[in-house]
């Protein structure tokens, strides 16, 4: 239907109309500050990242190690038994070559978001992060990767304390 319509009603505007002052307008900015409570599990996870450790948690009933750590098992709903420090290596489970940034700017060199199965966690358990230092065309599912950390003094207890994952030398 709409494809048959040649002219839509209304007044179309382009960025130029704003730049040249052809049109009057107001601009404003919202103060959308927020504080998100990390909770117990993620709080410990972020604190461990500051120390250069990827933390998981273990349920002895299900014999599962999950990452990021949870305090309650998702399968049996019992409290998890303990935290487990994991390796900072793993393998790519799935990935994407992304040619737009989060605010929809086109980029030439793709970002490579990937879900990485962390060594030490149960099969299929991993985290979403970026892969870098690799030819985008050579990224493969199952590729071995290792974390590249921020300098200790720059870490702030955030997932970005890991800069990205790169193909590990052992591969």
């Amino acid at each position, binding site marked *: 239907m709409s494809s048959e319509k040649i002219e839509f009603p209304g*007044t179309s*505007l382009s960025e130029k109309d*704003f730049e040249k002052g052809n*049109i*009057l*307008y*107001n*601009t*404003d*900015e*919202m*103060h*959308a*500050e*927020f*504080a*998100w*409570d*990390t909770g*117990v599990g993620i*709080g*410990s996870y*972020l*604190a461990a990242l500051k120390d250069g450790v990827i933390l998981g*948690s273990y349920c002895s009933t299900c014999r599962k190690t999950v990452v990021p750590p949870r*305090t309650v098992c998702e399968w049996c709903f019992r*409290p*998890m*038994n*303990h*935290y487990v420090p994991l390796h900072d290596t793993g393998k790519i489970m799935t990935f994407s070559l992304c040619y737009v940034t989060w605010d929809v700017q086109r980029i030439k060199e793709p970002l490579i978001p990937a879900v990485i199965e962390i060594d030490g966690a149960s099969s299929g358990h991993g985290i979403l992060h970026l892969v870098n230092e690799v030819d985008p065309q050579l990224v493969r599912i199952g590729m071995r990767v290792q974390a590249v950390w921020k300098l200790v003094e720059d870490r*702030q*207890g*955030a997932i970005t304390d890991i800069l990205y994952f790169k193909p590990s030398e052992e591969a």
Partner: protein
Amino acid sequence: MALLERDHNAVQSWRGNLPVTNRYTFGLAGERFFREIKDNGRIMGSICHHCDINYVPGVNFCERCLNPVEDWVEAGSSGEVHSFTLVCVNVDGSPKEVAELIAFVRLGDGGLVHRIGETSIEEIYIGMPVEAVFKPASERIGSILDIEFFRPIGG
């Protein structure tokens, strides 16, 4: 450390700020209204001859009969105080250093909410004739604040 215990060395919360900006265009009638203020220092209204209503600010469609309104006329720069209040706090709730006199000034069958100057809360009254004081043309940007304030006529 027990699993259900909070790590007090950990970050307790994650803080951020959503970068939300907006841009609001005035619309066809609003554009015409504010363009007249900016370029000519005139307050424009529009008349629906069917309903005999002089809309100020001017509109493109009559809100009563929904007919297009095409007859734009100057509303003049003077009107009368329809209602007023003394504003003592800022938008964020902090106290204002100088209280501000705000009024609804009736122009035609409509009017504008604006500041009242050169008078005081003791002197102002409902029905007081007031006139618009415009900024110099070079300083006008196409905003309602291109009118600096309304002041009593002959006061």
